[in-house]
C-alpha cells in the first residue's frame, strides 16, 4: 500500500487522513477475507476430496458446501470464546 501519497513533507488534511484510514480498513478486511477463503479451500479440500476425479462431483460439492458452513461456525465460535476470555482476563486485571 502506498502511504507516501499526499503533500510531501506537509501535514495531511483531515479529509485525506480519513481517506487513508478507510483504505487501510478496507485492505485489512480484504486480507482477512482472503485468509479465510484460503483456509477454507485448504481444509475442505482435505475433508472432501479424497481421490480427485475428472470433475467436482455432486457429493463432493455437497461436502464442500457443508464443510464451508462448519468452518465459518468454527471461526465464529473461536472468536466468541476468545472474546469471552479476553473480557474475563481484563476484568480480573482491573
Amino acid at each position, binding site marked *: 500500500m502506498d502511504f507516501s501519497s499526499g503533500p510531501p513533507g506537509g501535514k495531511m488534511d483531515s479529509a485525506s487522513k480519513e481517506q487513508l484510514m478507510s483504505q487501510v480498513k478496507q485492505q485489512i478486511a480484504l486480507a482477512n477475507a482472503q485468509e479465510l477463503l484460503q483456509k477454507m479451500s485448504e481444509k475442505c479440500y482435505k475433508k472432501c476430496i479424497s481421490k480427485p476425479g475428472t470433475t467436482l462431483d455432486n457429493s463432493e460439492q455437497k461436502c464442500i458446501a457443508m464443510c464451508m458452513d462448519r468452518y465459518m461456525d468454527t471461526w465464529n465460535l473461536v472468536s466468541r470464546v476468545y472474546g469471552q*476470555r479476553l473480557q474475563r482476563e481484563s476484568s480480573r486485571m482491573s
Partner: protein
Amino acid sequence: MSAALQDPYVRRFVNQETQKQRFHGLIHEMTDRCWEACMGNPSTKLDSKTENCIKNCVDRFLDTSNFVVNRLEPMRAGPSASSQPKSSGSFLYN
C-alpha cells in the same frame, strides 16, 4: 509512510488496527488448530461434542500461551526485579 505516522491521530489508528489484527490473526490460527483437533466429517450442524472440543481447544491454547509467558517472566525480569508486577493475560499483549 513516516510522514503520515508522525500524525498522532493516524498513529493511534495504526496502533488500534495493529492490535485488532493481532486478535484476528490469533482467531485464524486457533480456528485452524481447533478444526484439525476437533472436526470429524462435516455434517449439517456443529454437534455439541465438537463444539465443546473447540471451546476447550481455544481455552487450553490460551492457557498454554499464558503459562509459557508467566513461566519465563522471572527470567526476563531478572532476579533483582522481583518487585515488578506479575504479568497476566499474556495473550492480551503478545
